[in-house]
């Protein structure tokens, strides 16, 4: 019964104009994407697998988040140059997957909550975090962002959604729901893929052929241009501070910041206190 309703919704969506889509969608979770991620959940924490590029992306995105929080003065001066600069900050990792990003943020002292729609992945994330006894400031939950945000309004200092928005339905609602969880002056960090010819070539064709990501990970239609994302953030009462391009060197498994945003990019926005 539920399935037929969902099918109907999908059908409507394709007929309805963009602006009306959000009304028809009940969730930001895309079932097809969800299944795809669950399929690869086993190998999530294996350092020699497809996750490699996501692992090494931590070399960019963790400092990006840490320094973003330092620059917006959310980080307590006392902890700034210690091993735990994020002490006292509540951080929500939306679409945490196996916990690649949640773990380092928790290790930096943040009080991290990771949510993901996939039960499997959350189980894997919990198991992996359980092996490191120091990670007792990290909680995982199976939840969609809209369910979560309705119960956790303005609780978090930072919301992170890294490589997630290109996998959800109704992206503007997703952004809006994320921002709901943020305290005023809190920060939202997003990393995603641009919608360009180059991103189609590299993030789909090349990445899948080279085995950097499993086949079917990315859908071109869901890629999002920086200015559109910026508009969505503005609509949710956020002011964009930074948009940086990111470049992945497959040969050295290294990520680096570049000015060109035509493939991958990261953005940091601050919720305006109204």
């Amino acid at each position: 019964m539920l399935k037929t309703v969902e099918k109907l919704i999908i059908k409507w969506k394709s007929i309805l104009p963009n602006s009306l889509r959000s009304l028809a969608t009940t969730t930001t979770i895309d079932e097809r994407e969800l299944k795809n991620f669950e399929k690869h959940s086993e190998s999530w924490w294996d350092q020699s697998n497809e996750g490699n590029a996501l692992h090494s992306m931590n070399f960019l995105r963790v400092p990006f988040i840490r320094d973003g929080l330092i620059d917006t003065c959310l980080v307590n001066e006392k902890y700034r140059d210690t091993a735990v600069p994020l002490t006292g900050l509540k951080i929500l990792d939306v679409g945490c997957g196996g916990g690649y990003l949640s773990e380092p943020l928790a290790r930096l002292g943040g009080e991290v909550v990771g949510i993901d729609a996939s039960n499997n992945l959350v189980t894997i994330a919990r198991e992996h975090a359980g092996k490191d006894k120091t990670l007792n400031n990290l909680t995982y939950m199976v939840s969609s962002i809209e369910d979560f945000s309705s119960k956790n309004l303005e609780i978090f200092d930072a919301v992170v959604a890294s490589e997630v928005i290109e996998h959800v339905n109704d992206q503007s609602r997703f952004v809006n729901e994320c921002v709901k969880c943020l305290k005023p002056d809190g920060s939202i960090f997003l990393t995603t893929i641009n919608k360009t010819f180059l991103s189609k070539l590299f993030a789909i064709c090349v990445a899948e052929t080279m085995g950097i990501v499993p086949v079917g990970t990315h859908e071109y239609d869901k890629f999002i241009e920086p200015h559109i994302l910026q508009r969505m953030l503005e609509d949710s009462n956020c002011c964009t501070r930074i948009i940086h391009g990111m470049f992945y060197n497959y040969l050295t498994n290294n990520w680096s910041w570049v000015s060109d945003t035509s493939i991958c990019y990261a953005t940091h926005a601050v919720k305006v206190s109204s």
Partner: protein
Amino acid sequence: MLNAVLRKSFSKSACRRFASSTSLSSENHYDIIVAGGGMVGSTLACTLSKNPILSNRKILLLEASKEFNWKPTEKYSNRVVALNPNTRKLFEKIGFWKHIENVRYSPVCKIQAWDALSESMISFDSNNHVDEVAYIVENSLILYAANIENQSLHNLNIINDAKIKSCNLAIHEDEEIQVELENGASYTCELLLGCDGVNSKVREAMGVQYVGWNYKQMGLVATLNLSEDTEENRIAWQRYIPTGTIALLPLNTKQSSLVWCNTNENIKQLLKLSPEQFVDELNSALWKQYEKNDIVNQATKCLGSILKTLDAPANIMQQLPPSICSIEESSRAAFPLGFGHAANYIRKGVALVGDAAHRVHPLGGQGVNLGFGDICSLDEILGNAAYSGRKLNNLLDLRKYETARQRHNVPTMLALDGLQKLYTTDFTPVVLLRSLGLQLTHALTPVKRAIIEQASH
């Protein structure tokens, strides 16, 4: 319900803030174990303990020998090293230098090396004796400074008399590394750093490929008394003779330290000689005029005059080395010389540092400086890893360390090995080429600057 879970997790983490990894249940578990408490090991342990980003980590230093209780005496110890300016910077940062400065060290303003078979020479100095190119410090004094500093570190535990029996390295990603001692004690850690020297147990456990050879040479050390009380003894001298090299490293205005590399047989002979005979042998080796090959002589003279017309730095021996009047009693000792390099410095959760990873001929005085360079690099990389929330055993970080150090160490090591081979022959074409090469290098300031640059990092 969700809020309740959140609140619970938040309050739990509040207690954690500073405890971090130190709150681990097992008291035999450490974040980092440094295997080997020699100059490199104890410096590494101190550097990491003092890194503010790593200050919440528990570090264990395992040293095979008994507790160190050497006190500086008037008499110089016979083992000295030439530290480069970068090593001095490291020592200043971690507080060793003030202890060294309080006792003694000898700055070197110029290094002069010359070939006994052709008298061609090269000298290295920076800005005409203003800056120092190296510092001669006794090995024991470095350990003495390390010992004082390490005593006061709350996150560093030192165990003496700890001979490593075996290392059980992590095979699976999250397995801990276990180090077992001969006395039965066993410790676990996230990251094991092997500073246990040339015959490293850690390297053995890693099973990495190790390229090594023996030079069939030994190094003889001694403390020398100079004939004249020179006003300034600030030049390190090195003479290439057909059987090896002789280096005189300044200690003070009256004394220098000797490092004489020679064949095994010769060294054994030299050790047996009476002090007086030994001094005679040494002076003759320093001053002896070898029969010069005519071709080489002509060629070097010719190149010299060309260089002179070009106004390049001339190849004239401006200063002569001091002559030796006696040696300090029982200061003679010898050790074997070899070359060695591990193909890999790292594995998941393990890294080799210093002589465990690379061993060189002492002719450039670079061995220990390469080790201290490893420390600087590892300190920076591990600090970055921790400040980005990564675990210390992260393979990507360790690989960065390996790449950075091999890029520096391998060329330096090959150059030193090349020099060693180049100067242990009297085959005329080789002598000719090396003499001209030395002369040219001396004349070409940019080349010299590049060498100094490489040697001081």
